[in-house]
């Protein structure tokens, strides 16, 4: 109960950590104008799981963090239903809830758990969703994220991203660790660590592999590593720098950057390291390739016109078209999953900030207010953009909604965190 109080207090102040004890702590520093009021009654749970963080707490934290929900206090409500027959809708309309979630966690033979939940419309007094999960006890957090995703999708009409993973590089005690964590910062796993820098992690489209650049041989080399087996292979170790890997949407190829010709240029290589082909030919820097979602084009950063700007060319090469025109320094392009929005780092009078550009209209909106922002990437649903920022000389992560309304900060207790990339759903 104390925990719930703390959660609600933090939510109201909007400035303090929602969840403590995780490696990355998520804070909400802004919210949507219209928030859906939802009541989540603590699920009944067997005594064996009583000491663990409850499924209900995780669902509530997820929905709050999205900025689109207002999770209501349920303690003072007379009825505490767990099943449909126990629900008295008048109790919930009295606290202005529009939606209500009830559920149970039950022990099953063989050390399994059955998690059941229902999502109810308080105004219409009907059931919107009902589902059961048969899980191992270790899957409680993931199941809670999946339930939060289902509630989010039902009530907002777009897919949730709570049961997804992110990757980032954490510099801790002089070592660089490439890590993968749940989207709420929990459950961090180190994929690879080195005394030399690691940059530019890129998810394979199936979410099972990461390509990244490691300086462990005193120069940048591209590796591809399986998250399932931990095995890794050298994808590119050519003369000069090997960097900026980006998977094609079909997972068969990667765009990479080599300085084979002394100047950074874009190449395409098969995922097994064969079939290298140069696709950009300029006398300036061409780097940071990013595939359009349909694989037909590659967006990239080039200073061919003087300062760095973002261009687009066919993924087989050819003439490039300039995409960004505001300001003299626009880098690190990333495309929304629907292909309609471009996010990038834009230098203006205030510093280096995250911008989003509507590719159809060319309209640009600056989303972040900090001054040293880098490495933006879209969440799989296209709503949030995860990026790196610098607070007090230390790297940390932040996220902002593509409309600029919802802002989150993910801070690490000890490390210097950079180079984030939002990945895919947890299976």
């Amino acid at each position, binding site marked *: 109960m104390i925990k719930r109080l703390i959660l609600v207090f933090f939510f109201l102040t909007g400035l303090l950590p929602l969840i403590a004890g995780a490696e990355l702590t998520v804070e909400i520093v802004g919210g949507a104008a219209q928030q859906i009021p939802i009541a989540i009654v603590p699920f009944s749970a067997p005594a064996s799981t009583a000491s663990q963080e409850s499924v209900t707490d995780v669902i509530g934290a997820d929905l709050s963090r999205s900025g689109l929900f207002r999770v209501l206090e349920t303690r003072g409500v007379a009825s505490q239903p767990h099943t449909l027959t126990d629900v008295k809708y008048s109790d919930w309309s009295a606290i202005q809830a529009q939606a209500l979630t009830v559920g149970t966690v039950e022990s099953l033979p063989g050390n399994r758990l059955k998690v059941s939940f229902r999502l109810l419309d308080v105004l219409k007094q009907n059931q919107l969703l009902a589902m059961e999960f048969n899980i191992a006890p270790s899957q409680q957090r993931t199941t809670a994220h999946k339930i939060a995703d289902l509630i989010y999708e039902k009530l907002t009409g777009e897919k949730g991203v709570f049961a997804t993973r992110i990757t980032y590089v954490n510099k801790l005690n002089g070592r660089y660790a490439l890590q993968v964590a749940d989207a709420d910062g929990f459950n961090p796993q180190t994929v690879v660590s*080195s*005394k030399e*820098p690691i*940059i530019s992690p890129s998810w394979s489209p199936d979410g099972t592999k990461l390509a990244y650049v490691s300086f462990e041989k005193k120069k940048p080399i591209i590796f591809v590593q399986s998250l399932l087996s931990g095995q890794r292979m050298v994808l590119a170790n050519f003369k000069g720098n090997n960097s900026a890997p980006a998977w094609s949407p079909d997972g068969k190829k990667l765009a990479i950057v080599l300085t084979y010709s*002394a100047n950074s240029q874009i190449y395409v290589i098969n995922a097994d390291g064969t079939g290298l082909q140069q696709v950009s030919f300029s006398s300036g*820097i061409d780097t940071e390739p990013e595939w359009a979602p349909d694989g037909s084009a590659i967006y990239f950063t080039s200073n061919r016109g003087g300062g760095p700007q973002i261009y687009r060319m066919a993924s087989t090469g050819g003439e490039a078209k300039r995409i960004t025109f505001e300001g003299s320094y626009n880098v690190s392009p990333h495309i929304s999953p629907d292909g309609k929005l471009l996010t990038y780092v834009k230098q203006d009078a205030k510093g280096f900030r995250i911008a989003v550009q509507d590719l159809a209209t060319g309209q640009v909106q600056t989303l972040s207010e900090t001054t040293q922002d*880098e490495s933006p990437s879209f969440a799989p649903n296209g709503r949030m953009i995860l990026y790196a920022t610098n607070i007090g000389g230390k790297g940390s992560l932040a996220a902002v909604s593509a409309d600029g309304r919802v802002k989150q900060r993910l801070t690490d207790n000890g490390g210097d965190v950079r180079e984030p990339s939002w990945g895919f759903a947890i299976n």
Partner: protein
Amino acid sequence: MKKSLLASAVLAALLAACSSTAVKDKPAAPVEDSSKSSAQTAPAPAADDGASTGTASQDSVGVNPLKDPNNILSKRSVYFDFDKDEVKAEYRPLVDAHAKYLQANPNAKVMIQGNADSRGSREYNLALGQRRSVAVKKAMNVVGAQDKQIETVSYGEEKATQTCKDDGCWSHDRRADIVYEGE
């Protein structure tokens, strides 16, 4: 306070528990090719490893010009403007002196390490650092240093100061360093 301590402990436990690939840290020299013929940086003729020290790098009084603070060859850094890779006129004497040294000492080799300040994207800065190292190399080529004596590498912004707040600090990171083999 307790919470962050606890969190650190949890993190440490997680880090220890998860199966990961730890890269072995080799104490490798920055120059990959450690060829035998170069001992330019030996501090004195009587090196106690018994190897014959190169006399080419030492002047008549036995002081290594590369280490002599009164010699321009002891200066190793070329600084650049933001988002630029042109070698500015003020660094020409430094670059020329090293090029002439390489010309006079055909066995000497250098690694030119390009760097950028911490602002902007890491990948763009990696490419920019590369162009800075290549710009210094080309300036040396003009004066007669041979390609085979010069290697280039970029560290991008990876060696940059993270706590800079003004250009006095950032400008220090926008540089190419000339490092002789064996140093």
